[in-house]
């Protein structure tokens, strides 16, 4: 175990945050909060302090939210979550978003030290998954999850989650095909080599053997490795369209038939080298294109937003966790602080205060009275409430909205550059091929006619398109990835380059939910500030921490009789004064002031002192971003919130930008639709469930989030809120990528023309073909790569 070197400065030993108080000190190590200290204590008790040796401050600030994992002991839920179970052991794969460094890896693979009932744990770092084998008789699942939570690695438990979705993310079939085609390519090259150098009479006896070996390899490549091209081409022909795979399949077929003909008839060496090389490169292109993000899901639906289970109350008032799908109309459920209402329900008991910001975009929580209907998706703030379900989960307002037919977009409508060009390309190639065929036929040279015909088809290969496009676009994808902008696939890059209108949502999208502006209304003396600071330090509530930060370092007083009421506030005697902080109802029900939830009221003794208010803050660089964008794009703002911020927004957005407030999710969807009918290509930036429809409808839906592990609605791309300012660079880079692809197409055409020059004369030798193809490929890959890097440097995206 290393001794701490960090304790000299005031950073938390566990998470590296600034330390505002010296309350949390254990063995000369300082911590920022009780959460971090707690994790350290668990680890040091179990002799796991190596965790701190591999990285400095490897932990993450733990937000204390009381959670109930009782549902994990329900057999019906248990069986859905685990991968394998028998009498003795159980195997489960958890998705743990907090995995981020080698310390995490080390700790999670040493779980058996904390509890010997855990047999083995293996981490997949990139996927942020841990596969844990445990003895469920010694450690029930619930306890396992609680261990993970206690060390700061809370798994994301959901029945429809990325763990299951990404189980087979590695396309083994494609890799196997690449391996086989690579094997064939290597061997064919070896066997063709003597042919390239010219065969002496001594070696002529091998020609026959080499020819047949080449043909055998060619057959494997054609019938096994190229299957996908044939099926894809056939599929598109059936739909009477031509995609890029159509000419590719044609070329593979022609190459094989001609090689077979030449070798069987003994008239020539065939084109097996070109065939295998081509298929190998094409498969590589496919592989590059298939690059996926291991830890991001673009297709989450409402099920991953809702909890796995809810607490059902039976007739006797007994609590029993049940899977969310088992909820029936009339069920009584208990929703605790910070839990989500899973179905439309009526409030039966308790003080309801629901935060709908994620569902509707409204920034202030709503207070509900007994008997009111509460729509699914609201998050309860405060004490537990009892609700009676009035609609099953699948019929809830939110769920119905999500399943709306209009949200289901047909993705195949997006035409990419490749498929468009493939049509013209195929047409031109076939015209030239038939032209040369008829020319030579007319001149009576039948053999030459067929030579020329097949040769044209061979050299005019659009393989460059099939290779340069995925390479260029996936480089862009990787570049964006590093900068915090995650695109679903390469087609999205092309779509990004086409966009001409931007639609912004307000809450959570251009406003920053995490950064807060705190202000105090009222007057406080230095002494009173210290009193408040001393009290706030004891609470792990985010607002308390903000207040501590806002007050800065001050004298500390002894706190006695501390008590915290969830969702209400805190109270204690500090230096002999009674201090109460929290909601209006808790602190000063008789004082006539605002009662929004983002306000913390303060009372010292009997005197009401005033309140801290949290103001929405716009994202950094928002103003510059809008200034850059306004010259090039049409912009719109649609919000589900009230118009209170209109004034502040109009100083950021130019006058002519339409701003709509109080828009329902359906209004947003219709607005996008209208824009599209006016021939706009719309990019929608939103964050919440209320934007889900608009995101689906738009040509490019971008979900904005501050933590990519958080739930985001289904979208084409996910953008980290902190890098929103780079949007103009992203768009520019996408546009440049499209230019690069077009440019590479021009280079490829030059090579093709050279090839066609030989081909139409019927004098294309296998050697020329075997040289031209890799030459053009190398040129293209080099130019696209260099150009991409150049523009990335220019756009400061590297």
């Amino acid at each position, binding site marked *: 175990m290393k001794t701490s070197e960090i304790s000299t400065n005031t950073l938390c030993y566990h998470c590296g945050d600034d330390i505002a108080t010296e309350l949390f000190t254990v063995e000369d190590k300082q911590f920022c909060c009780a959460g971090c200290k707690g994790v350290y204590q668990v680890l040091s008790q179990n002799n796991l302090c190596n965790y701190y040796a591999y990285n400095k401050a490897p932990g993450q600030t733990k937000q204390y939210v009381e959670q109930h994992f009782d549902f994990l002991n329900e057999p019906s839920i248990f069986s859905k979550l685990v991968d394998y179970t028998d009498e003795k052991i159980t195997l489960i794969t958890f998705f743990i978003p907090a995995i981020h460094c080698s310390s995490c890896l080390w700790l999670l693979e040493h779980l058996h030290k904390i509890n010997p009932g855990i047999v083995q744990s293996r981490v997949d*770092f990139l996927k942020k998954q841990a596969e844990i084998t445990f003895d469920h008789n010694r450690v029930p699942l619930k306890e396992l999850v609680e261990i993970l939570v206690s060390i700061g690695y809370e798994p994301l438990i959901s029945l429809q989650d990325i763990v299951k979705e990404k189980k087979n993310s590695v396309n083994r079939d494609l890799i196997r095909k690449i391996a086989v085609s690579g*094997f064939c390519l290597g*061997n064919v090259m070896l066997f063709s080599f003597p042919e390239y150098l010219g065969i002496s009479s001594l070696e002529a006896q091998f020609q026959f053997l080499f020819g047949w070996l080449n043909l055998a390899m060619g057959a494997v490549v054609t019938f096994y490795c190229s299957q996908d091209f044939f099926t894809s081409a056939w599929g598109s022909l059936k739909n009477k369209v031509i995609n890029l795979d159509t000419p590719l399949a044609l070329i593979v077929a022609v190459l094989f038939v001609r090689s077979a003909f030449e070798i069987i008839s003994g008239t020539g060496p065939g084109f097996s080298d070109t065939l295998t090389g081509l298929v190998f490169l094409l498969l590589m292109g496919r592989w590059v294109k298939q690059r996926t993000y291991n830890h991001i899901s673009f297709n989450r639906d409402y099920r991953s937003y809702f909890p796995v289970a809810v607490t059902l109350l039976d007739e006797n008032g007994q609590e029993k966790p049940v899977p969310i799908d088992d909820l029936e109309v009339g069920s009584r459920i208990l929703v605790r602080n910070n839990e989500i209402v899973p179905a439309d329900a009526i409030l039966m008991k308790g003080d309801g205060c629901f935060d709908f910001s994620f569902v509707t975009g409204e920034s202030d929580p709503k207070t509900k009275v007994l008997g009111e209907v509460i729509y699914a998706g609201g998050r309860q703030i405060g004490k537990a409430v009892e609700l009676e379900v009035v609609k099953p989960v699948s019929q809830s307002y939110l769920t119905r909205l999500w399943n709306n037919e209009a949200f289901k977009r047909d993705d195949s409508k997006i035409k990419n550059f490749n498929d468009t060009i493939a049509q013209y390309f195929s047409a031109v190639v076939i015209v030239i091929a038939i032209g040369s065929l008829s020319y030579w036929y007319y001149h009576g040279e039948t053999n030459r006619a067929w030579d020329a015909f097949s040769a044209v088809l061979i050299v005019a290969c659009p393989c460059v398109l099939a290779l340069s496009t995925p390479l260029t676009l996936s480089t862009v994808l990787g570049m964006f990835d590093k900068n915090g902008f995650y695109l679903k696939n390469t087609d999205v890059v092309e779509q990004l380059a086409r966009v001409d209108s931007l639609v912004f949502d307000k809450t959570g999208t251009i406003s920053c939910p995490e950064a807060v502006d705190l202000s105090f209304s009222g007057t406080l003396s230095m002494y009173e500030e210290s009193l408040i600071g001393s009290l706030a330090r004891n609470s792990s509530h985010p607002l308390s921490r903000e207040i501590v930060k806002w007050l800065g370092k001050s004298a500390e007083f002894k706190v006695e009789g501390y008590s915290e009421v969830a969702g209400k506030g805190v109270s204690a005697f500090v230096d002999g004064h009674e201090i109460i902080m929290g909601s209006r109802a808790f602190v000063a029900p008789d004082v006539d002031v605002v009662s929004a939830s983002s306000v913390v009221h303060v009372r010292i003794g009997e005197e009401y002192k005033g309140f801290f208010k949290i103001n929405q803050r716009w994202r950094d660089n928002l103003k510059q971003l809008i200034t850059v964008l306004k010259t090039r794009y049409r912009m719109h703002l649609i919000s589900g919130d009230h118009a209170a911020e209109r004034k502040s927004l109009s100083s950021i957005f130019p006058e002519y930008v339409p701003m709509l407030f109080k828009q329902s999710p359906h209004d947003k969807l219709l607005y996008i639709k209208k824009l599209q009918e006016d021939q706009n290509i719309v990019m929608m930036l939103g964050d919440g469930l209320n934007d889900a429809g608009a995101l689906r409808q738009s040509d490019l839906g971008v979900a904005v989030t501050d933590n990519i592990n958080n739930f985001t609605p289904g979208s084409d791309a996910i953008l980290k809120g902190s890098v929103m300012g780079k949007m103009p660079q992203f768009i520019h880079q996408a546009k440049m990528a499209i230019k690069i692809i077009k440019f590479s197409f021009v280079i490829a055409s030059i090579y093709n023309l050279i090839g066609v020059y030989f081909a139409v004369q019927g004098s294309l030798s296998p050697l020329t073909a075997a040289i031209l193809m890799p030459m053009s490929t190398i040129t293209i890959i080099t130019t696209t790569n260099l150009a991409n890097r150049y523009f990335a440097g220019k756009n400061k995206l590297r």
Partner: protein
Amino acid sequence: MNILYFLIGCSVVMALFFLGAFFWALKDGQHDDVHTPAVRILFDDDKPEETE
């Protein structure tokens, strides 16, 4: 020169052997996670429990 027939046969068989080895590795999932093992190998072995 006839020995070449034998050598060519050998080279193909050997190449097939390697291809088979690759398939084996693929089937065993060696290509599923190519990042974590590289990190894992850097960790020290656990020190033996200190006897008191």
